[in-house]
């Protein structure tokens, strides 16, 4: 396609904007890139004064942990191949083998199988093969970049970070499930209702959303600590202490998050013409059936986008989780902060960095899986009949 003359930009402008974008991307991505690099190095390399030492890690290499040119090439090829497979082959397989109407299940099974296969090939099958190959190729097989996974091992296995991961999973799943269930129903009701009461409910929700999180935490904390005593008259001797329980944190995070999900989902529902509900109701649906069979299928981008925001709030929350959870139920973000509160050694710091890198991985995965829905959800209004 030829750009119309009126829209053509002078060379200097195009070069300038491209350079600006590149510089901006570099600045924005640099912290993540840098901690990712650091997390694979021994502390001496990770905190080296010379940035090149951080990247190439001579100390790490000297300890016998490193990648050769062949390793790097083989790894990149594997990654490329995996990405190609995921984009081309996976959708086709899912489309062919998943039972009609259950493509979601098909996708879950397909991506699980793909993920496990990838891990097995990449971490179990590939390394021994490359060891042999490196031994035979001489200089090409000699390590050039220092790289060690010891900190990840320390974090996940020795420090029991997986417990924090499980706790995070429980809290985020709870928050997303509750706030989406309540949010879709409330958002739909409020979007379709014309009464002034609906308007006031929304305003009240907005006020609750505006409250600082610490207000809610300060309000809930004493109640949770004393809950066993307070609930004894009703529940008897088995009355639980809510402090430290993931369920209690879910309740607090939902109350922080719910107003926002209601507002967001309401605006998505408002973009769906009311004629659609009406057509469904005339065609033979009850109000709820119209919601379930006609409105919800059109709403998925909105639900997924809102769900992502709820997920991020629960996943990234520090204040509520650090104050309301005890040590065994700690989620990942406060756990990482815990690395810095001890007598911090450089090893601890690199481990904290490794933990920080590990908690960003699920976010990347999530955004990649749902990117199409998120884009259409964020650009909204893509549901006109």
């Amino acid at each position, binding site marked *: 396609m030829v750009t119309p003359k009126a829209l053509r930009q002078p060379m200097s402008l195009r070069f300038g904007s491209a350079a600006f974008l590149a510089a901006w991307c570099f600045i924005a991505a640099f912290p993540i890139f840098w901690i990712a690099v650091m997390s694979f190095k021994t502390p001496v390399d990770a905190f080296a004064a010379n940035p090149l030492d951080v990247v190439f890690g001579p100390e790490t290499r000297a300890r016998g942990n490193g990648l050769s040119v062949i390793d790097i090439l083989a790894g990149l090829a594997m990654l490329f191949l995996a990405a190609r497979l995921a984009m081309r082959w996976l959708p086709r397989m899912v489309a062919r083998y998943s039972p009609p109407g259950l493509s979601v299940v098909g996708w879950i099974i397909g991506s699980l199988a793909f993920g496990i296969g990838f891990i097995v090939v990449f971490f179990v099958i590939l390394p021994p093969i490359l060891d042999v190959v490196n031994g035979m190729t001489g200089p090409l097989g000699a390590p050039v970049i220092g790289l060690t996974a010891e900190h990840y091992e320390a974090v996940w296995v020795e420090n029991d970070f997986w417990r924090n991961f499980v706790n995070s999973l429980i809290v985020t799943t709870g928050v997303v499930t509750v706030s989406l269930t309540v949010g879709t129903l409330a958002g739909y009701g409020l979007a379709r209702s014309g009464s002034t009461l609906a308007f006031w409910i929304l305003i009240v929700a907005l006020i609750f959303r505006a409250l600082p999180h610490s207000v809610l935490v300060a309000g809930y904390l004493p109640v949770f600590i004393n809950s066993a005593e307070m609930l004894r008259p009703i529940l008897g001797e088995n009355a639980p202490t809510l402090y430290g329980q993931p369920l209690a944190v879910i309740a607090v995070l939902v109350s922080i998050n719910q107003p926002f999900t209601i507002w967001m989902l309401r605006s998505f529902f408002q973009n769906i*013409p009311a004629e659609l509900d*009406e057509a469904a109701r*005339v065609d033979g649906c009850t109000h709820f059936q119209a919601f379930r069979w006609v409105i919800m299928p*059109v709403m998925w981008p909105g639900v997924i986008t809102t769900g992502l925001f709820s997920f991020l709030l629960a996943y990234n929350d520090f204040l509520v989780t650090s104050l309301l959870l005890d040590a065994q139920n700690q989620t990942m973000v406060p756990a990482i902060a815990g690395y810095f509160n001890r007598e911090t050694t450089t090893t601890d710091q690199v481990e904290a960095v490794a933990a920080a890198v590990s908690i960003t991985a699920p976010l990347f995965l999530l955004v990649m899986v749902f990117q199409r829905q998120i884009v259409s959800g964020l650009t909204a209004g893509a549901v006109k*009949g």
Partner: protein
Amino acid sequence: MAEIQLRGVSKRWGNFVGVDNFDLTIADREFLVLLGPSGCGKTTTMRMVAGLEEATEGEIVIGGKVVNDLDPKDRDIAMVFQSYGLYPNMNVYDNIRFPLKVRKVPEGEHDDRVRRASAMVELDEFLHRKPAELSGGQRQRVALARAIVRQPQVFLMDEPLSNLDAKLRVSTRAQIKNLSHELKVTTIYVTHDQIEAMTLADRVVVMSQGVVQQVGTPTDIYDRPANTFVAGFIGSPAMNLMEGTLQGGVFTANNAQIGGLQGSDGPVTLGFRAEDAAVGEGGGEINAKVYTMELLGDATMITVRAGGALVSVKAHKEYRAEIGQEISISVPAQICHLFDSRTGARTGGM
């Protein structure tokens, strides 16, 4: 197949009156058109029949059963919406099938009925497409097919043609007329387009500001408008209306004098249709300067100022006059309609 009765039906929102005391019986298999400008309450009336809007007062009876408290799904109606109301996530086939599915019609019948309905609106080739991949006219035909697939007692159509372009509107209109002739189901059709009303209706209800102005066959409404609102709304161009006084059977107004009329003396509004009057050589009832001349192809429209209004006359297509030229228009008494100048109600004529 059912008769619909509206007994004193009103709709109010606070102090605002949407529909006021609507009384009408729609015969079985009748094609009734609700006609009026936007905001006149015609759509509200239909939505009350559908059950999408609750009547503040009055009873709605379909097939001998009061349906006021029934949900839309229990009224055995089908509706076609202005902007189609198609389900964007389903293809055409599933859209048409949806009413059968939710109403638990035996699965075995579905395919046959969907194909029959889609054949009636000539959609056979598009069954696998999504609504987004169809043109406006095709979408409206899907909506029609979805309405007829279930063979309901009543069809409701809410301005089904107003989102289509002019050419498509004519052909879809013909298709609706043909369908209604074939299916013979009681139909309420809402429109603001008087040509649709005239061509489709067995009977037309003209509404304005929530009040029924006239109920009658298209000819009735055209030939004997009940008041100045109907006279000024129906017809293209609408009826010419002149303010003047009647004295001893002679109507006098600025530039106009028409004799031989019957009616009581006093101020009146006189109306006549452009195609009934003729441009003469002189000695006509209206003598005035030409205000404008428009060529319509099949006729020439001459407009003059008379009786405080612009008055149009259709002349034959070769007729030519200069703007400002003095002409004479003959308006015999037998083509004139008389209305009360205060209430606008019809008092005589024709």
